[in-house]
């Protein structure tokens, strides 16, 4: 089997069609540029204009949880290739590349943790892993996070950043919508709580499943939260899109999220919510 492996098609930081893509540490909104440590110090929020840069799953967990409280679960799960999917490159190759570049086995990290001394279960997505897409393993991990939360009688906090269902697992990815929906319903049946934090972007299949079922839904400022992205809406409908189409702020105005929480306030906000749902226990 001497298959030719074409590695030239996709580069992670290849320039986009419409000119050079800015450096990941350059603020797309005000143009300020930062060193890694400067950004990390400010929780990846631009100190100048408040733009929220993306946060990797591991970093997010560090930002939110009490020191050394996070214990990862189901880290060993890996996706297989149920359809033998091959577009310009084999799916297995994309998976391997994603694991190498993110250091994660899949696009979601789950585990038990504490936030401001309140115990909880965490499910945090990683956009860097194939666009944070949800295939069978992400569905499985989320379901296990729900079960863990129910068993331990603690709330589940999910942090989503995702393009939606993973195309490479075809219809099996679509089945993760009802699967995660049912997991949330079971959690609710057990008296459990889901606090859904929507980060940029939370779209398509994940928005249309567990992320929208939180008892409380909070969003980060400027996050795109739409079932269909602005480009596709524009192409299909030729409608003129409002400037803030699909953004957290528009969703707040239309009643789809409870609160927009800037990142520095996220940890105390989650602490407050966890205390409220623990109800003095």
């Amino acid at each position, binding site marked *: 089997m001497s298959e030719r492996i074409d590695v030239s098609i996709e580069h992670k930081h290849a320039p986009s069609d419409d000119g050079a893509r800015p450096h990941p540490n350059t603020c797309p909104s005000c143009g300020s540029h930062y060193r890694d440590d400067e950004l990390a110090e400010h929780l990846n929020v631009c100190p100048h204009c408040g733009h929220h840069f993306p946060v990797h799953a591991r970093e997010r967990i560090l930002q939110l949880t009490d020191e050394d409280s996070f214990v990862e679960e189901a880290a060993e799960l890996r996706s297989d290739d149920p359809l033998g999917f091959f577009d310009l490159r084999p799916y297995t190759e994309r998976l391997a590349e994603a694991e190498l570049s993110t250091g994660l086995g899949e696009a979601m990290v789950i585990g038990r943790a504490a936030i401001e001394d309140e115990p909880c279960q965490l499910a945090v997505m990683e956009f860097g892993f194939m666009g944070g897409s949800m295939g069978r393993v992400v569905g499985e991990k989320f379901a296990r996070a729900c079960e863990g939360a129910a068993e331990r009688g603690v709330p589940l906090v999910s942090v989503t950043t995702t393009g939606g269902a993973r195309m490479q697992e075809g219809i099996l990815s679509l089945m993760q919508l009802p699967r995660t929906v049912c997991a949330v319903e079971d959690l609710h049946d057990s008296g459990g709580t889901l606090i859904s934090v929507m980060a940029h972007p939370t779209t398509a299949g994940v928005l249309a499943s567990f992320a929208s079922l939180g008892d409380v839904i909070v969003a980060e400022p400027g996050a795109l939260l739409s079932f269909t992205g602005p480009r596709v809406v524009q192409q299909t409908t030729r409608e003129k899109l409002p400037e803030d189409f699909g953004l957290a702020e*528009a969703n707040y105005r239309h009643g789809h999220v409870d609160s927009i929480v800037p990142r520095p306030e996220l940890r105390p906000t989650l602490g407050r919510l966890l205390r409220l749902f623990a109800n003095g226990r």
Partner: protein
Amino acid sequence: MAGEAELRLREQLSRLRSLPLLRGAKLSGELERLQKQLDRIVAEPSDEEIWRSVELARHTDRPYTLDYVDRLLEDWFELHGDRHHGDDAALVAGIGRFRGRTIVLLGNQKGRDVKERTRRNFGMAYPEGYGKAMRAMELADRHRFPVLSLVDIPGAYPGVTAEQHGQGGAIARSQALLSRLRVPVVTCVIGEGGSGGAIATALADRVLMQENAIYTVISPEGCAAILWRDAGEARKAAAAFKPDAAHCLELGVIDAIVPEPEARRAYRP
């Protein structure tokens, strides 16, 4: 793609067969495995057959939900409106009698002529449609009417108002409600089972699919535009993600395939 895979397997098989059998036991096991894979590939629908399913699933002469209502139900009474904003003509809901028993029917509805197609928004539901569906589900649960849901949607409508009215949340809550119903729910994909727009009304106790229907995570064109950077490669995308009934059955996504009559007769509703 099946073609390439088949060739590769055949090549491996012949190479293995021609090797002197020094470690015979291991090799014959390998031979058997490859032969099995090969048999499976040969039995699978070809890329052309898969694309034919896509075309047939979208065919305008194919029966739509209301055609089935005419033929299956008596005393049909259609419900209108979500009781909040409006009535979505792309998703019909109503009460009727099926073999003497009252049921609630939900279904995506496309149109045949230009006027009707526009009125039905090409079968693409707004959140209002899912709102109406949820109202009908609650009614079914209250009165112990079984639910039959016919799925035929290219995708939930991708528009500004749809987003403002909460398309994603509506799809999520519709599934959540279906999962809670105490009455039996049967779904049949009768044409296009397009992504989230389809699963919103397809979470059921039994899921059927017509022989030439398709059930997809994203439209073949959408997938091609993203992965091949060219919507024109929809055939390749369809072949890769296998949306046909045979594959859905094999993957355990559906319970059974409903055979269709010969195409010539089937497309006269």
